[in-house]
């Protein structure tokens, strides 16, 4: 695979704040890369620099070996985190307007069909629900048949059903050969869609690889999950080093049998016990919660 986007030593400062701090990575053509990170990590600034929306303080971004220019604008599809659409304009008129900005465009009727816009095609953009608006924004981002698609938290604020629908649509874009760069808060989303993930914190990329590779690199253990009420923190934290979140105790162990034996000895009820493999959520916490913030 060839490199479609090359990010080199990217720095973006806003006064004294360094939002993006010497970030470098390459994106392979046809891949889907997820940019993950907590709020304020610099994800949106990084993606906007890559989209050419913001000008970097230092560093460079090259699209197919060239600086971002008209060719990039013609071949890039962008869906911002928060995009307001022109008012008093219908969905169809919006699609027609954007199609006139590009030399090569997708068939509007095809987009309407693929992204299920028909039911609200002649509706004013002000009257769209969150899910409908996201579908329209995705269709607008795809109007120029982009070779690279930027999605900044595309499913934030959507209900689970709408989110899964959007995943399906993103998969379809990927299957058609487009390169995708997406930022997300949802680890499940990153795992479902991305070939590679890059985890950012404090403006730096702290891990970048395929999700399974990263998990294998960082973990050789599993998590035993119990209800918080079944194992009080005095026992859980002292005996097992458990962490508590979302009303659950999470015990990390590389020897499940031994840990269960210990729990039985302490008469901890195990009816709600769940054993799970380590996931991106754990990886994220591991990297952003321990390495950088301790």
């Amino acid at each position, binding site marked *: 695979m060839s490199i479609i986007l090359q990010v080199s030593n990217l720095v973006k400062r806003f006064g004294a704040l360094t939002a993006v701090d010497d970030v470098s990575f390459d994106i392979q053509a046809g891949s889907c890369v997820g940019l993950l990170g907590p709020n304020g990590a610099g994800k949106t600034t990084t993606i906007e620099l890559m989209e050419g929306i913001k000008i970097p303080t230092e560093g460079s971004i090259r699209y197919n070996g060239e600086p971002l220019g008209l060719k990039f604008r013609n071949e890039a599809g962008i869906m911002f985190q928060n995009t307001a659409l022109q008012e008093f304009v219908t969905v169809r*008129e919006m699609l027609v307007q954007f199609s006139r900005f590009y030399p090569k465009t997708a068939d509007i009727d095809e987009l309407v069909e693929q992204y299920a816009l028909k039911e609200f095609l002649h509706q004013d953009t002000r009257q769209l629900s969150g899910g409908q608006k996201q579908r329209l924004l995705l269709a607008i981002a795809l109007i120029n048949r982009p070779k690279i698609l930027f999605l900044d938290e595309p499913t934030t604020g959507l209900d689970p059903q709408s989110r899964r629908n959007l995943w399906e649509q993103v998969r379809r874009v990927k299957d058609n050969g487009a390169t995708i760069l997406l930022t997300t808060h949802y680890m499940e989303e990153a795992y479902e869609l991305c070939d590679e993930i890059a985890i950012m914190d404090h403006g730096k990329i702290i891990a970048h690889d395929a999700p399974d590779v990263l998990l294998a690199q960082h973990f050789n253990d599993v998590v035993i999950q119990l209800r918080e009420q079944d194992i009080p923190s005095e026992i859980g934290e002292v005996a097992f080093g458990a962490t508590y979140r979302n009303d659950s105790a999470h015990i990390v162990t590389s020897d499940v049998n031994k840990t269960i034996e210990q729990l039985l000895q302490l008469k901890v009820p195990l009816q709600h016990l769940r054993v799970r493999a380590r996931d991106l959520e754990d990886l994220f916490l591991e990297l952003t919660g321990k390495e950088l913030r301790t």
Partner: protein
Amino acid sequence: MMWKRMYALFVARNTEFFRDRSALAWSILLPIMIIFVFAYAFTDESPEKFKVAYLVASDLVKEEGSPAFEKFKSTRYIQFIPVQAVDVNLRKIERHQIDLLIDAKTSRYWINQTSPNGYIVEKLLIAAYINSSQTPVKTTVEGDQVRYLDWVIPGVIAMNMMWGALFGIGFVIVRYRKMGVLKRLRATPVKPIEFLTAQIMSRLWLLIVVNTLIFIGMDFFLDFRMYGSYVDLFVVFTLGCICLICCALLIAARISNEEVANGMLNLISWPMMFLSGVWFSLEGAHPWMQKFALILPLTHVTEAAREIMIDGVGLTQVLDHLLVLTFTSIILLVIGAKIFRWE
């Protein structure tokens, strides 16, 4: 491709304008209300001050006139304006911009026989010279009666264009920027100059159509004076609109806060409204005010339109105004496009 992109933005802005019924209604009703209220309010009302121009050899040398003239000069409620040329001021008498012109040395005076103000000022002049050895010599200037309505209409139309241009464009762009509409456009191949040109074209034709309708409607009701060519007037108003739109584009080039935009738009619109000679002549006003008025685009639109409508002059006679409007537009547009910020 560039034209196609501009056309897309042009169509989108027009669609938005026409579907926003409250804004559409407001932009049509407001100028009609203004014209009716102000035109009728001022039609039958004489100005409080009379204006008398008197000939002096030089601005720099203060000349003492005859005792009779000095007595006349001490009359209250008359504004005395020193002037040096006769011809240009005879024209002003014709147009009721001044009520009487007098040469204090020879006691010769000029007056418009049809002017009510001129009649009163003449009586006051004769009264002041009663016990004087000099006798004022009367010369009549034959001029058409130019009603205040005829005089004010060109300015009112120009002023309506100013409001439409400044607030119609300025606010829309600032709102687009605040909402993130511009940010989305930035992610496309659209260039700032394409976006700005589309905004100019969209607002321009709307202003022209709206003001043409107002012009026709007002002419039907008020039957104001229109001696010049409609094509010439169209050229003046079109250039004026472009210039005023470019003012708005410059103001809206970077601002993303509607309150700041409102303040800045008011800051330039109110001085234009009062210092561009829309409502009253700046004849006799302080020289700095007259000079300041010359940098306001509305002054040039108003004066050029007035000369065409009242005096029936052609484009060559208002070329100075047209050149000022053209160059100002180009400068404002270039700076606006240069400093334009999508976010």
